[in-house]
């Protein structure tokens, strides 16, 4: 029987790992030889199955027929490097080998290696079923685009009159890789071979992101898409005003989902406790695949929730937090990063923080580096590649890094230099060479470096992409700095341009490492997986010399709403984790209560800012 592939994708925190593992359990339970692969560099799969997994295909001890693997970009890179180094190991002097190895640490190799490994899994193999638990949307769409793009690059370079060279080697040597990519593309597009499931929550941002992603997949020729709506409030949870208000919101969104998507989604309800242990996971597998409830069967509640007054009181403004958020007296600017697992509220917290600071009189820019950002929905206005003022808030500008625009800018810069020197034919060849996925990543990174070097704003608040993606971005200045060093090793004379670039990178690296200039903050729910993920990332940043000084606990249930067993259970679960956070993180902790509305619009954001940092 041919292997079947299942992709689970969606915004961060919607339940991709839960639904994909539950599906894997279900398939393995039917006696099918099943493999679950996570492509998320910040995966929680090991936590779900309560055992070590790692980069090798590993049997899950407590489940027959089930195997798992965590694609580790570092190990994939080493394997990829070994393909080059292996043949040379015995014949070249160690000094030369060391230089080649350093070069292979280039960021391009790392991306290529992960993607190459990923396409390996999309080939016919020994498994009946292969399930991909993917990284949050932005990252995953890129992974799916890469086979198409690289296949195109190799094809162009093989044509007569082309250089015959690609960024990843001579086109002639890549014929086999191209065949592999093409087979992967074909498998992804065949609806009898591959199924795509988007997991979403009944919330505006999650719906909008799903809608956009579906369009992107269609552009790649992937048409057949299923949906799971997760986190729907069960009837027993709805007996207090906050829950009623939130359910009313949810139902508005469930109606929108029915209207805009072709597929009739399956529904999963919010549970009073966390999903740990195989028994619960098996139950969810059955909820999804045996007694699945469809949205078309859902009974909408009647009646309207009462308007709700906030009962929370604002905390007293803590001078130590103000110090973390505003420019140090000795330096012109402050850069603040909000990072964390997908879906924990990075954009909301970044936006609320940006507004709070702007209203204190600081010239502030809120900038997102997440390709799947929903800053637009949060502020209710178009966000551009160039900073634009917020329509109502003075001192507040908004922007996102648009990969396509950044790539155009970068290409224009290089081509306008080249135009002075080369003829039309050569220029078109250079343009062709620039048409590579490497260029896009480089261009986005350059734009990030521009912002890191700016002095126009008092404060820049970075709303970052989910953890894995962000760790990679933050590691790029260090990685490219190293590449410039290798380049100078090979050259008699270092060019002025390279010298200037290296100085610029060094400055940014310094800035990232200096807590007087940069504040690193992790946002999380008081729940197991977001805390574990943040804690891991904090340690990884620590090893790069970057200290985390602020932690935000989001969606904390205010005691006054813990009115029935369902909410009391959730509240006490949260308290346990809030205590755990104090032990795990050394930085200041700020909390944000669960609010009745989605955090959209300036009034809600202002309220959130007061809840976080105080009002006076």
């Amino acid at each position: 029987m041919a292997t079947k592939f299942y992709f689970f994708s969606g915004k961060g925190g919607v339940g991709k790992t839960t639904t994909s593992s539950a599906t894997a359990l279900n398939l393995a339970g039917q006696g099918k030889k099943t493999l679950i692969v996570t492509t998320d560099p910040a995966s929680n799969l090991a936590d779900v199955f309560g055992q070590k997994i790692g980069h090798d295909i590993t049997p899950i001890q407590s489940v027959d027929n089930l195997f798992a693997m965590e694609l580790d970009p570092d190990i994939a890179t080493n394997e990829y490097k070994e393909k080059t180094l292996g043949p040379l190991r015995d014949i070249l002097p160690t000094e030369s080998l060391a230089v080649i190895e350093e070069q292979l640490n280039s960021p391009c190799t790392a991306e290529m290696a992960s993607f190459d490994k990923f396409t390996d899994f999309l080939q016919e193999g020994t498994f009946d079923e292969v399930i991909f638990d993917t990284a949050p949307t932005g990252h995953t769409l890129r992974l799916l685009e890469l086979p198409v793009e690289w296949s195109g690059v190799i094809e162009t370079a093989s044509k007569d009159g082309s250089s015959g060279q690609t960024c990843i080697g001579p086109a002639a040597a890549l014929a086999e890789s191209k065949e592999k990519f093409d087979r992967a593309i074909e498998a992804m597009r065949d609806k009898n071979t591959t199924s795509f499931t988007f997991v979403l929550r009944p919330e505006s941002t999650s719906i909008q992101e799903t809608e956009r992603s579906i369009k992107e997949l269609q552009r790649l020729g992937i048409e057949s898409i299923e949906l799971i709506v997760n986190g729907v409030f069960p009837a027993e949870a709805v007996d207090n005003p906050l829950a009623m208000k939130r359910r009313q919101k949810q139902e508005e969104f469930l109606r929108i989902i029915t209207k805009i998507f072709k597929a009739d989604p399956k529904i999963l309800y919010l549970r009073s406790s966390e999903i740990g242990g195989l028994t619960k996971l098996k139950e969810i597998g059955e909820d999804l695949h045996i007694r699945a409830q469809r949205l078309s069967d859902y009974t909408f509640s009647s009646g309207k929730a009462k308007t709700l007054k906030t009962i929370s009181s604002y905390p007293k403004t803590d001078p130590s937090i103000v110090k973390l958020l505003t420019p140090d007296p000795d330096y012109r600017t402050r850069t603040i990063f909000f990072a964390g697992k997908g879906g924990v509220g990075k954009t909301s917290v970044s936006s609320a923080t940006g507004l709070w600071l702007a209203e204190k009189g600081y010239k502030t820019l809120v900038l997102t580096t997440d390709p799947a950002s929903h800053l637009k929905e949060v502020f209710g206005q178009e966000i551009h590649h160039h900073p634009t003022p917020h329509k109502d808030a003075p001192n507040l500008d908004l922007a996102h890094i648009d990969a396509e625009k950044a790539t155009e800018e970068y290409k224009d810069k290089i081509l306008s230099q080249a135009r002075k020197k080369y003829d039309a034919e050569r220029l078109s060849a250079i343009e062709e060479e620039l048409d590579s996925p490497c260029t896009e990543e480089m261009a986005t990174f350059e734009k990030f470096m521009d912002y890191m070097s700016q002095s126009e704003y008092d404060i820049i608040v970075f709303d970052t992409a989910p953890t894995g993606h962000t760790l990679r971005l933050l590691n790029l200045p260090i990685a490219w700095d190293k590449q410039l060093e290798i380049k100078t090793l090979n050259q008699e004379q270092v060019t002025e341009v390279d010298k200037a670039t290296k100085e610029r990178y060094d400055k940014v690296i310094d800035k990232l490492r200096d807590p007087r200039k940069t504040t690193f903050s992790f946002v999380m729910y008081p729940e197991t997986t977001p805390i574990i993920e943040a804690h891991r990332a904090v340690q990884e940043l620590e090893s790069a010399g970057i200290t985390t000084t602020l932690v935000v606990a989001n969606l904390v249930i205010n005691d006054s709403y813990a009115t029935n067993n369902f909410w009391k259970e959730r509240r006490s679960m949260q308290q346990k984790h809030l205590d755990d956070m104090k032990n795990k993180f050394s930085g200041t902790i700020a909390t944000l209560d669960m609010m009745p509305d989605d955090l959209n619009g300036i009034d809600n954001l202002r309220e959130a800012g007061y809840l976080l940092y105080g009002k006076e």
Partner: protein
Amino acid sequence: MSNVIIYDPPMCCSSGVCGPNPDESLMDVETMLAELKKSSFEVNRYLINQSPEKFKEDPRIIKLIQEKQLKVLPITVVDGEIIKTGSYPTIDEVHAAKKG
């Protein structure tokens, strides 16, 4: 038909338009190779980090690296003969070296 092989040092990409700054000297090399192709040379370019097996195929290249480390690269071979090491040749040097 004459042929040129360039054995390159480790680098991200021979096009010169990759990495933090465009590398003009590499772009000039590509321009030269395009010219050579037009005057019916067969041109092959191998980066040591991408095509190690091509380096192994020519024992002379490996021997040079063993003796002088990577700074002996790039090495240019025209019609089977090593004509330049340590830097790229000019187009005239290539033409002068071709046999027949």
